[in-house]
């Protein structure tokens, strides 16, 4: 499954860590970090290899509740996280950061909504709490199955960029998924 995401498997990231570690003459620590990340990846993949295949919506931010939302697209890091957790990205576009109106999001009907916490404080909906407040209070959006089923999880927005934080983001989502009752 991993090969389906443009982003994974993580060979390029591991290569980069290896190169940097060699440049700074700490090759052993680089190896240790790679081993650690690989182990975390494998652990998640093993844990979520069951018969549940949820779809995830990764909501990065929006200028305002009504505006089209910036989402984590198809095969980017968001898709990789979804894949690690035994599911797939509800947004299938090739674009890394598509914008989509709420009708499109309602139509995508994700199993789980990932509300990202973006620490830049530029838009009111950068904040994960503001996203959750909108999802649960808007008369229409609150009718989505994911919202009605309480399947909203919070993840650091930085994990939606390709970096070592992507795996930490996947772990953050995994921790909350364990407490949820997935359909």
């Amino acid at each position, binding site marked *: 499954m991993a090969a389906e995401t443009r982003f994974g498997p993580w060979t390029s990231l591991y290569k980069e860590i290896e190169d940097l570690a060699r440049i700074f003459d700490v090759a052993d620590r680089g190896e240790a970090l790679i081993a650690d990340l690989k182990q975390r990846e494998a652990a998640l993949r093993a844990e979520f290899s069951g018969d549940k295949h949820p779809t995830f919506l990764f909501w990065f931010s929006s200028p305002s509740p009504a505006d089209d939302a910036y989402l984590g697209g198809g095969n980017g890091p968001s898709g990789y996280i979804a894949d690690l957790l035994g599911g797939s990205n509800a947004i299938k576009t090739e674009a890394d950061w598509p914008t989509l*109106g709420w009708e499109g999001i*309602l*139509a995508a009907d994700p199993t789980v909504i990932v509300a990202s916490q973006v620490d830049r404080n530029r*838009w009111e909906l950068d904040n994960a709490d503001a996203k959750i407040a909108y999802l649960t209070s808007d008369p*229409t959006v609150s009718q989505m199955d994911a919202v009605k089923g309480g399947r909203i999880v919070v993840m650091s927005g930085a994990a939606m960029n390709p970096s070592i934080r992507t795996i930490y983001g996947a772990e953050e989502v995994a921790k909350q998924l364990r407490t949820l009752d997935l359909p």
Partner: protein
Amino acid sequence: MPSDRSEGGAGWLAIFLALMLIALAFVVALATTIGDFSIGLGTVVLAITNGFGLTHADIPRIQEAVVWDLRLSRALVAALAGAGLAICGAILQALLRNALAEPFVLGVSAGASTGAVCVIVLGIGAGSLTLSMGAFAGAFAAFALVAILSNGATSGPNHTILAGVAAAQLFNALTSYIVTTSGNAQQARDVMFWLLGSFGGVRWGDFQLLTVVIALGLAICLWMARSLDAFTFGDEDAAALGVPVARIRLILFAVTAMITATIVSMVGAIGFVGLVVPHAARYVVGPIHLRLLPACAAVGAVFMVLADIASRVVATQQTVPIGVVTALVGVPFFAIILYRARPQA
């Protein structure tokens, strides 16, 4: 023959307007049935009749909301925006006696962009309300500059166009300066999206505001329609016919700036409609403004709703900026008109 139509009394206009209203009803209906979320035709009809309070059918809340709150409000705002931009185009083409005049010729769009970019990039305030207000303030700043540069619009059409071009250049430069010196890639993308326009964020509140502004603007323009006709012969002839040239020009500039600024602050700068629709409408109903303005409103409305439908369906799970579609759809359409209206040898 076009000349027959333009001289041919109210009958042809009435038929044309009736046809356009039917077309508008049809495209709005089409807009409410098309979208990512597939909803059966029967449910769409019930959602709309429920919305008007005619029925109380029990349909899924989510489908009802998609049809009523997202699609219908969006289609109607698109229709009003198209109508408004087309009216402004017709007015400015008459006032400035220039076939290339359009709502953004007074620098209004460039000013609105600068205002919006100040909010997006410099972070003056936050949220969509301040964004709209920033755009509105910028639009009127540009308009005021043009009014001052052209001596309160007393110094003739060419002077006003030059003032508008200067204002547009100035504000575009300011926008580029702000984006290149303080923006990042993500912000540049926000700005670009905003500049190309989107109906994504509109709701019923926008529809109500736009209805008031455009109804008021259209009423003022229709009231002055005969003076507008006189402008076609030039300022001096219009003055000789008893038209208070400077006053009417200033009032109508202010009306078009008001309509354009409201539209731009709501849905961004959507190009092409204001330029093309008046020419298309003039070809059908002739140049008399009492007929031209209603025809422009109707054609602009239909065109914009169609363009918005295209912007939603052309790419799945992604919305294409409406300004891209108006130009892509509009240019071939305009080319046909230009070709058919070419002077007969």
